[in-house]
């Protein structure tokens, strides 16, 4: 698992993907931070964190698109799948590599908080709650992206596919109230990402939210393992 994780980490920074991901994340994160905090004379980071949601949504597919599709395309999956490693270790190795790069980008939000701290206490508990929320939601997106990447050998399809799924999960928030069938509305509400995420951004650390995002990770990592396993049988 660690071998795969290290290989994927070095691959991120052997190609431009890792740098582009971090750069874009920092630029837009910095933009929202400047607009909502520095220029508005506010020490409230919740607007910044709130807008991070969109950035993560758009950027995470960039991080996950190549994870399995590239292996499939270049047939390097033969090396991975014939090595004495379990499928779960394989999937987790790739997942953790993406999560680590993602963490690196999230670290910027700590910097924002420290900048605020120069002027006024930013409310560290609030900041950490948001950080955890962003991390959890990103991990959920990464697991979805990883899953889509295992379905195709085309990176573009993987990126667009995971972006579409993530976007759908967000749109659901605004679609759900308009649905008149009660049970369907309930289903839609329960898989909505944004309402759970925004609960964190106003400072509520909800256990149900934590469980929700971790469950999403578990489900999609499991599905990825199944996809790899199924490919052997078809």
């Amino acid at each position, binding site marked *: 698992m*660690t071998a795969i994780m*290290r*290989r994927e980490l070095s691959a991120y920074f052997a190609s431009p993907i890792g740098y582009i991901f971090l750069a874009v994340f920092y630029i837009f994160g910095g933009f929202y931070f400047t607009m909502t905090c520095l220029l508005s004379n506010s020490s409230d980071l919740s607007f910044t964190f709130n807008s991070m949601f969109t950035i993560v949504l758009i950027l995470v597919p960039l991080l996950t698109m190549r994870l399995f599709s590239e292996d499939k395309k*270049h047939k390097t999956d033969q090396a991975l799948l014939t090595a004495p490693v379990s499928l779960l270790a394989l999937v987790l190795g790739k997942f953790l590599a993406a999560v680590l790069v993602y963490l690196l980008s999230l670290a910027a939000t700590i910097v924002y908080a420290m900048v605020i701290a120069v002027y006024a206490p930013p409310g560290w508990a609030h900041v950490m709650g948001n950080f955890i929320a962003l991390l959890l939601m990103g991990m959920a997106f990464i697991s979805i992206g990883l899953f889509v990447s295992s379905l195709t050998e085309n990176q573009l399809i993987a990126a667009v596919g995971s972006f579409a799924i993530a976007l759908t999960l967000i749109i659901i928030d605004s679609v759900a109230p308009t649905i008149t069938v009660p049970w369907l509305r309930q289903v839609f509400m329960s898989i909505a990402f944004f309402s759970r995420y925004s609960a964190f951004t106003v400072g509520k650390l909800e256990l149900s939210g934590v469980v929700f995002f971790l469950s999403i990770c578990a489900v999609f990592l499991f599905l990825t393992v199944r996809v790899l396993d199924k*490919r*052997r049988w078809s």
Partner: protein
Amino acid sequence: MIEVKSLTKRYGAKTAVDDISFTVKAGEILGFLGPNGAGKTTTMNIITGYSSSTMGTVTVDGAEILEDPIKVKSKIGYLPEHPPLYLDMTVKEYLSFMFDLKKVKLIKASHIDEICDHVKIADVYGRIIKNLSKGYRQRVGLAQALLGNPDVLILDEPTVGLDPKQIIEIRKLIKELGEKHTIILSSHILSEVQAACERVIVINKGKIIADDTPDNLSKAMSGDKKLTIRVDGPESSVFDLLSKVPHMLCVDKLGMREDSVYDFILEAEAGHDVRRDVFLRLAERSWPILALRGSELSLEDIFLQLTDENSPAAEQARPDAPDSGGESEDETRESGEES
């Protein structure tokens, strides 16, 4: 070492591998021969655990691939048809990664150095794989398969796309490796199998159609009673004389080769060697024999015969090879083309 039992693989309605069974003894070099699409790669992918069988079992050194995949995989070094190389890595990084991935318990630096020397890639050790030639990539792939000194090596078309010099080098390497490893090697190039393997399994349309040593195969297929002879003498008289040799079944004229030099094909009754009689009789008449050879088929001919559905030879594919007569003709044909 490797036991494959009634292995079947279906892709939807298509049967890629159809009820194949064979065993490979420790230290054996087995050649897997067949046209493209015969099921060689599929079989190898199943043995290495890359894909699963629809039916049947594969046991490597006592462990079954589906029951204990990790144990089986740790015993096998696999070089697929396309070497699974990460093009963005240097050879060093790649081998180091594969070493970790395979959880090899040897001293890393010295083990990798040793392998690099063995497959002669020490001079490209620091280069990015993307920039390497096909021959070097193939060798890096082979190095990867050798990591951890696995008991079993499975090499899928190891010489495809190499130039003749590289082909010879890789073959030599495989022979050397055969001293320490059990090897299964696939190819659609017959000379390769003939050169490197002690035993050949010919596979066509997912079925095993022959399983023997290369020599036995060619003997059995040709029937060792056929001879080709070249004689300096008048055609019709030589023909009459040859026809009268005891136990001669039939003589065919092949026509003139040089001035007053003619070729004939002789077919004797089974179990009789007519070569001495032929020589003595022709010598009596002072008609010199310029050439006499058993018209054994090369593996190439056998292969074509076996894989040709209409050929009766395909029926008698599993021969109890008779062990007499016939000079074996060591004619290795070079056909290094790709599929």
